[in-house]
């Protein structure tokens, strides 16, 4: 599903200066040469600590986003208005869980365990995409999440298929295929609603009004305020700047909105012939940072729900371990 630009540090708001490299210069030179040649870095390869740390942060944030992102859409599974839509939604939310699984696995190849990453999420230290800190208030939110949120995520993630770190890039290839399907199903669901009753069309417009600006913020802060981006570009972890991706998303979405028959809630949104792009209004970055820092409408609910599921599942995980150990002991005894 969805990433925001992962130039957002886990200790959000504090944009720390990069520590100077104390790595072995020869290994560093070989690493740089591989990056410059657009080669892949694999788990067994030497890599600078800062590269490893940045990747763990980025991939785990991405994985957390998938898992937390199951909640806003999951909110409508029980109430999906047709069995077909219910089945599609369950499958989609299940896909997001699957993405979380590949991503945690990809991050584990860098030497950080899933438990450590979850601890980061549950303690509030690790971030996830802020888009999931907004409520899903009507059924059309499910369609709009597919169309716009997954659409924005695809824009972010397609370049990651060429990311310099092999396991992450390969996970992204599969994730992007599924995301593309998610986006189409969302758009299709909205098309059906827009051809339906007045009340259905109003639901779609309401969902677009609430989610449009949040989706634009998903691409991360403007390039001028995104200090981690340059290093990410240098390392081949990031390929296209936040603002360029945002522009690409807007340019692609405007004609889709027209076909759908919804209004994008930005009076400044218009085609600029000279730039050959759409101009658009000001994103409320204060609101974005408030939400990143934990003070959005649903941050506490989302996180508490993840913690609750994890804590209440402890006995299940303990049982599985205890049973596996008992079986091992029995096998030992039999062999003895």
């Amino acid at each position, binding site marked *: 599903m969805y990433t925001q630009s992962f130039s957002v540090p886990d200790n959000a708001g504090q944009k720390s200066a990069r520590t100077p490299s104390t790595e072995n210069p020869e290994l560093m030179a070989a690493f740089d040469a591989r990056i410059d040649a657009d080669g892949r870095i694999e788990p067994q390869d030497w890599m600078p600590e800062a590269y490893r740390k940045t990747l763990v942060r980025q991939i785990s944030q991405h994985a957390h986003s998938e898992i937390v992102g199951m909640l806003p859409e999951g909110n409508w599974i029980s109430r999906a208005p047709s069995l077909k839509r219910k089945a599609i939604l*369950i499958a989609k939310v*299940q896909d997001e869980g699957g993405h979380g699984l590949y991503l945690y696995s990809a991050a584990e190849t860098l030497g950080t365990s899933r438990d450590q990453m979850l601890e980061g999420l549950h303690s509030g230290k690790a971030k996830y995409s802020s888009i999931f800190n907004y409520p899903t208030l009507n059924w059309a939110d499910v369609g709009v999440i597919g169309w716009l949120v997954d659409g924005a995520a695809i824009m972010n993630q397609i370049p990651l298929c060429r990311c310099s770190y092999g396991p992450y890039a390969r996970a992204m290839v599969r994730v992007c295929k599924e995301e593309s399907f998610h986006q189409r199903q969302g758009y299709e669901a909205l098309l059906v609603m827009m051809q339906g009753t007045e009340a259905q069309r109003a639901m779609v417009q309401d969902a677009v009004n609430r989610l449009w600006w949040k989706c634009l913020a998903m691409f991360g802060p403007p390039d001028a305020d995104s200090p981690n981006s340059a290093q990410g570009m240098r390392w081949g972890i990031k390929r296209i700047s936040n603002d360029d991706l945002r522009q690409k998303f807007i340019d692609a979405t405007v004609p889709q909105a027209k076909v759908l028959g919804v209004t994008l809630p930005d009076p400044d949104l218009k085609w600029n012939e000279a730039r050959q792009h759409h101009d658009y209004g000001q994103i409320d970055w204060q609101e974005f940072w408030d939400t990143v820092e934990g003070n959005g409408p649903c941050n506490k609910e989302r996180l508490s729900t993840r913690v609750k599921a994890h804590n*209440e599942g402890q006995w299940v995980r303990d049982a599985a371990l*205890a049973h596996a150990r008992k079986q091992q002991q029995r096998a030992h005894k039999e062999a003895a």
Partner: protein
Amino acid sequence: MSAPVEYILHLADNAVVLGQRNAEWCGHGPILEEDIAMGNVSLDYIGQARLLYQLAAARLGGDATEDKLAYFRDDTQFRNYTLLELPHNGPLVGYAVSNRDYATTITRNFLYGALMVLVWEALETSPDADLAAIAAKSLKEARYHLHHAADWLVRFGDGTDESHQRAQAAVDHLFVYTEEFWTPSAAEEAAVASGAGVDVRSLRAAWDAIVNDTLTEATLVRPEVRGYITEGKQGRHSEHLSYLLGEMQGLARAHPGATW
């Protein structure tokens, strides 16, 4: 030879109600792999429900559709086993609030999964070709559901003290509801008479064998059951079904005639 529509609806209602219940775990599972697995089980049930409702709708004719059957029938018209509508916790009244208990979920999936493997095996050779085709597809899924639930039940029973206690409590709570499996409803009798259905009583010995084997492996005790036998498949439900359907059907019913 066609199975009666009421019988198909019984099979469909079972699937939709348990699919709805199991989907409640989506995003809340005890471990990510299990969250995905339970979503899959739920998806299978919703898929089975769709095929069965489509078949029932085709045979009813008129303006019947899968969604009209799922969303616009009332609780007293539902023909699912009472077992399947219960919330994921111990015995509590309809409006009681409780945390979900995975042992209850797994135990129910096990008891019902063991039945459905046998039911679909029998229906796979039904002379009702449409029903037989659905049975063939559903049988593969039911085998997985049984395998998955039995594995976890053994892990719980033979795991920690807490998991053992939870699993035994769930077995004690749910076992009595399985008595409903063996008392044929009018729809089941009509299906047997048509030649297209299966006599549930003929499946009991095989079901006992599956259940007893797994309970033994799990070091769990099969409880004695006596007294009231539930009648959900005859439309007389527990307090829980109307809540479940209220949530499931609310949005669809607020917009009658809308297409989604």
